[in-house]
């Protein structure tokens, strides 16, 4: 298997799916001539042409809506937000049009579209350019929300998202584009949506982590292993629909859970996962579910404060020790 970055894996996924299906096109700010603000779309304009790889004006609501309209009549748009921070401008079309079209048309108009781009915390770009928005989108029935944490997941999940007939919010972690990993060869490699992956097996505590928190959780598990605590790390990969079955099975085995996330705690995805666990596996819990979330503040600029706002290995270790009643 080739070892490539998440950035390269995403590029391969887009390229392969565009070669596979002429109805797939890519649109967004700086995706073509500039080769992508984060170079995810590098080379695609040259290979696939300006009809299918399209630079837009800075007009997020407009091109998001244009994509939904194109999807209504049979195209399969990939709409890139330069960062998901700018998707906030496009939420009317994502939520009121893309998510609801199939339902309110009585099943007549499916919307096969992928809204993708980097999200989550970035490096020292302050409050408006550094935030995790998955709990917003995951709230809405009709949307699917996907967050890859490895190059293989990035490629396999993006290919599945492009082939899916529903609107998919595909959030790539901005800090993770350069992360490397093995990716299976072959254009047929896909990963189904809605299936969690057990990243590390363990017996004492389950850590549910997604996106940037997956490598954090794995490091924490290493630290905890040296302290005699065996952690199971579960990455849901798809936030909606959530593979709660895999999470619950893990909890039934370990009886203790920590849910780690970058988002603000209030109304976050971890709150939802915690509730699902309580509803489905209350009798298996030996301790209350513990959340590790981003600080409940807008992202600060100063490096020291920024580090304090994003959960790290230490917080996850402390949370695991707390639910294991070790301290």
């Amino acid at each position, binding site marked *: 298997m080739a070892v490539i970055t998440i950035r390269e894996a995403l590029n391969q996924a887009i390229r392969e799916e565009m070669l596979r299906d002429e109805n797939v096109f890519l649109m967004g700010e700086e995706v073509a001539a500039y080769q992508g603000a984060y170079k995810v779309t590098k080379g695609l304009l040259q290979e696939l042409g300006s009809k299918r790889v399209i630079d837009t004006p800075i007009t997020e609501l*407009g091109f998001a809506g244009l994509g939904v309209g194109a999807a209504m009549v049979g195209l399969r748009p990939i709409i890139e937000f330069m960062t998901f921070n700018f998707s906030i401008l496009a939420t009317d079309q994502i939520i009121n049009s893309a998510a609801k079209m199939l339902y309110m048309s009585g099943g007549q108009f499916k919307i096969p579209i992928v809204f993708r781009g980097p999200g989550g915390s970035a490096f020292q770009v302050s409050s408006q350019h550094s935030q995790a928005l998955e709990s917003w989108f995951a709230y809405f029935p009709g949307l699917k929300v996907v967050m890859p944490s490895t190059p293989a997941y990035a490629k396999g999940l993006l290919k599945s998202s492009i082939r899916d007939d529903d609107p998919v919010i595909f959030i790539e972690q901005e800090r993770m584009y350069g992360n490397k990993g093995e990716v299976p060869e072959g254009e047929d490699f896909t990963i*189904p949506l809605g299936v969690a992956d057990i990243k590390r097996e363990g017996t004492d505590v389950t850590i549910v982590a997604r996106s940037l928190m997956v490598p954090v959780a794995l490091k924490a598990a290493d630290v905890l292993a040296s302290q005699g605590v065996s952690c199971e790390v579960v990455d849901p990969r798809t936030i909606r629909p959530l593979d709660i079955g895999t999470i619950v099975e893990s909890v039934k085995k370990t009886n203790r859970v920590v849910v780690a996330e970058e988002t603000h705690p209030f109304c976050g995805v971890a709150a939802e996962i915690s509730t699902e666990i309580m509803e489905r596996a209350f009798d298996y819990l030996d301790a209350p579910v513990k959340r590790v979330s981003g600080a409940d503040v807008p992202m600060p600029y100063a490096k020291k404060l920024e580090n304090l706002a994003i959960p790290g290995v230490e917080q996850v270790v402390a949370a695991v020790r707390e639910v294991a009643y070790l301290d």
Partner: protein
Amino acid sequence: MSKQTAESPSRARAEEQSATGVMEEASVATFESGLDKDRKTIKQQQKTRVEGFDRDTLLKLYYQMLLIRRFEEKSAEAYSLGKIGGFCHLYIGQEAVAVGAISAIRKDDYVLTSYREHGHAIAKGMSPESVMAELFGRVGGCSHGKGGSMHLFDKELNFLGGHAIVGGQIPLATGVAFAAKYKGTDRVALCFFGEAAVNQGVFHESLNMAQLWKLPCIYICENNQYGMGTSQERAMSLKDVAQKACAYEIAAEFVDGMDVLAVREATERAVERARRDFLPTLLEVRTYRFMGHSMSDPGNYRTRAEIERYQERDPIKLFSASLKEKKIIDDAGLGEIDERVRAEVEKALRFAEESPEPPAEHLYYDVYANPITTAPEEN
């Protein structure tokens, strides 16, 4: 109209003309005064237009307008009886716009519009039965009772809704036009919206993209002068919506929305431009709604006298008078059409009343096209 406002759209069109040679004679300078013309002058203009159409076409247009009028009257009645819920925005007074414009396109062309869309749906060929049943929230409705009055859809007829966020359909229609061109077809998209939607940012975003990428989208602003209870003059810094087209170098035209043939002719010009040269057009169609914004509108923001003044220009009365004077039809013929229309509306009402409510299991249908089951069976 000031000289400046009169010239701006003309300039856009003049440039358009030089680029494509397809622009027709400007009507910008003449329309504004047209609204103030007496009924006699307007009739004279329409009578001249009548000469350009065959009898079948003229009578079909008349039938459709009357069908929409009677359908809406019946909707109002059913709403008062509590048979229709939620919001219900009637199209009475504006019939000439949907009927005239949609009569200028092919069956395989697309229509997208706002929440005041019963008329557009019927003009696009949807059966009054399926529309009325949708208003009643019945399973026989075009959206199986899931959408209601504001979300009518018919995929087979390329009627793409029915959108209830003001201006929301504008980028969607732009995308439909994008797809039509992308797929190598010569189809066009008609996008209807009210003048209040023009104040939404996405109107401007869409027009910019449409001209930038040469998309076959025809933007039809139905200027009925009120966004809910707020008059255009209290909401828009410019008097003329069409003038905004020059900001995007889009061809624009003012159209008398009370004259179904004027609407049709202007749309035909726009359609030709879209089909042949992939160019968008903005039509500002001046019209007036005789009823409130919705069924719950107290109507205290305009006077009875104002409504009556526009009712003198009632597009259906105007058209029937023109048809009679040009000997296309006589009173007996008009009476016969009215009977057929009433029978069709009664049939729609019966269908809606007899159509069952959606079964409970439909609540969870059609949330996803590719549903994924993830939850384990409950213990």
